[in-house]
């Protein structure tokens, strides 16, 4: 019974156990509850790294819950798997790495950011539940299990968004908007899971992908899933909950929410690529995702420029950066049907889009942490009231520059690497899209110059004269993110070759996903 074989489940269950234990530990000694949670999420990060090396070297990992043997997908005499099966292939572990890293840094950041708040054990329970929800969404190979983890993540993130809702009304309003929108999403996802179960009498994704005949009902399920998961990822016409909830949540939670909404983006790609693949009309669905992406890019950045609240501005940038990912992978989906185009630029476009998910999680997390640092010291989020903070908050200013340069796609940083791949491959597909993408990058840089000028530059204002630098744990979280951004920027090919390309391949060829389950016959 060596623990290595049980890693796929330990990565989910250790945060869950810690989530339930933290109220009790909070009562015993309130002071280092945060330390306990950071240690737990640190262990989860190490386990995810071990899992990543296993999956990337030895191929997808399966974990069957409650069966006699953890790889017995088909119990004796049954034609389809009936238990919940975790299937972790290169794409799932790609998202799992983002999740575990972001949650670990969020817990380290909130060691000092949330020290003054009371009710900390509720905060840490919800943070750990959100960690379980997101990693569950990303690792599960069962459609209904995905719905359950989606709801766990939604409810935990709503409670975290409205965490400060007791003393002022805005967080409660933001939380309410997110919960209503997520409840619609949950019902629609369950409706399509019911459609799959009603037709094929099976809940496991790989088996559905195998027996799918794309009937009229499957078309309806596809429509529901694409709409609802695009909404949860924050694509434009349905993006309005994003600025509300990102600006009202505590800083560490906003960083985590960025990663959670990317898990819904992963789910959108998982359902369209693995479940339907070429059985559906890939050109039509591809172009839908491209249009959603282009709309998100353009409207997201134009709305960001006119914002006054720093976190609301960054939230609109999260919407516009999600547009890049949708554009990249949408182009890959649109050409999935003809192999020549897929070979020349389709795979490259998807690599750009998926690499952008990792980069975005890094630099958007860094930007939100710097915004949290500013709020932590000045107590306000309004850019008009801030000024001259660069004089004494030097580290935060440096981290902000790195984050802003990365998001705007300035060369040595990681944003540039993934955007370059997206520009070049999307250009071959349709030049206009690449031009819009470049224009949006310029506007992104413009709005971050505005933030940098009004928050950091300018003379020292009298009420912020004695502002000190932020405490160590916040600096550590920001420093790790900045370090990762620089490393990914300098050696992008290592990341693309080892992590991103296998993930793209795992998405594209459906057979590699299904034969892992059916192989276990």
């Amino acid at each position: 019974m060596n623990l290595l074989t049980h890693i796929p489940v330990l990565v989910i269950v250790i945060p869950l156990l810690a989530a339930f234990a933290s109220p009790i530990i909070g009562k015993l000694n309130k002071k280092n509850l945060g330390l306990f949670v950071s240690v737990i999420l640190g262990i989860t990060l190490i386990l995810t790294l071990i899992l990543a090396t296993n999956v990337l070297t030895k191929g997808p990992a399966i974990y069957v819950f409650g069966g006699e043997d953890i790889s017995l997908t088909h119990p004796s005499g049954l034609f389809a798997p009936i238990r919940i099966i975790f299937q972790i292939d290169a794409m799932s572990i790609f998202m799992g790495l983002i999740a575990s890293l972001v949650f670990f840094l969020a817990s380290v950041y909130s060691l000092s950011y949330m020290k003054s708040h009371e009710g900390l054990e509720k905060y840490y329970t919800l943070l750990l539940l959100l960690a379980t929800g997101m990693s569950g969404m990303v690792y599960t190979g069962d459609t209904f299990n995905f719905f359950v983890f989606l709801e766990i993540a939604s409810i935990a993130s709503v409670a975290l968004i409205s965490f400060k809702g007791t003393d002022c009304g805005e967080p409660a309003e933001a939380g309410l908007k997110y919960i209503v929108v997520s409840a619609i999403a949950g019902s629609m996802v369950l409706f399509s899971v019911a459609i799959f179960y009603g037709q094929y009498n099976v809940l496991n994704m790989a088996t559905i992908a195998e027996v799918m005949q794309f009937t009229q009902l499957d078309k309806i399920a596809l429509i529901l899933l694409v709409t609802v998961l695009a909404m949860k990822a924050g694509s434009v016409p349905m993006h309005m909950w994003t600025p509300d909830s990102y600006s009202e949540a505590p800083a560490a939670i906003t960083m985590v929410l960025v990663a959670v909404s990317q898990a819904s983006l992963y789910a959108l790609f998982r359902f369209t690529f693995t479940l339907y693949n070429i059985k559906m009309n890939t050109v039509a669905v591809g172009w839908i995702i491209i249009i959603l992406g282009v709309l998100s890019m353009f409207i997201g950045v134009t709305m960001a420029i006119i914002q006054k609240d720093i976190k609301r501005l960054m939230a609109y940038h999260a919407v516009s950066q999600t547009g890049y990912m949708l554009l990249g992978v949408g182009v890959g989906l649109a050409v999935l049907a003809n192999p020549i185009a897929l070979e020349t630029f389709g795979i490259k476009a998807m690599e750009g889009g998926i690499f952008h998910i990792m980069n975005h999680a890094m630099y958007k997390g860094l930007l939100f942490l710097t915004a949290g640092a500013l709020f932590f010291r000045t107590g306000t989020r309004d850019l008009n009231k801030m000024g001259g903070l660069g004089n004494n908050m030097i580290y935060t200013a440096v981290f902000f520059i790195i984050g802003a340069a990365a998001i705007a796609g300035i060369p040595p940083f990681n944003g540039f690497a993934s955007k370059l791949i997206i520009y070049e491959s999307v250009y071959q597909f349709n030049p206009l899209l690449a031009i819009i993408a470049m224009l949006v990058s310029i506007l992104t840089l413009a709005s971050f110059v505005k933030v940098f000028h009004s928050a950091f530059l300018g003379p020292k204002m009298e009420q912020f004269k004695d502002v000190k630098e932020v405490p160590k744990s916040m600096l550590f979280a920001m420093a790790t993110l900045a370090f990762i951004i620089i490393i990914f920027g300098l050696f992008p090919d290592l990341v693309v070759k080892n992590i991103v390309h296998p993930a793209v391949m795992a998405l594209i060829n459906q057979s590699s996903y299904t034969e892992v389950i059916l192989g276990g016959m």
Partner: protein
Amino acid sequence: MNIGLLETGSGSWNAIIWIVMVVVIGIVVLWVRSQGEEKYKKDTNQTKPFLSGNPEVSKEDSHVSASHIYWGFTEALKKYYKPLVTLHTGDLNDYSGWIVLVMAIILIIVGVS
């Protein structure tokens, strides 16, 4: 030297060569700058910005705050920004309305094809 070399579809990108180039050009630029005129007297009116004769306003009041920085940009695109901002009503009913609208559009596109 292909550690940092990233193949991007129709070309490749190497961050390290880019940094080396920036450093080299930086040195050249600094060298050219150092050849410049040295004989100006510090913080006399030679180094003061020329505001066509107006007295220089103190730093505090000349700090352009956030909402005025892109005044020109937003003013020029007023016809684009006014409807866009009013569309973001923040009303919960509109949020669900948008979801249903997008679902209808995708239903038409996927249903037809």
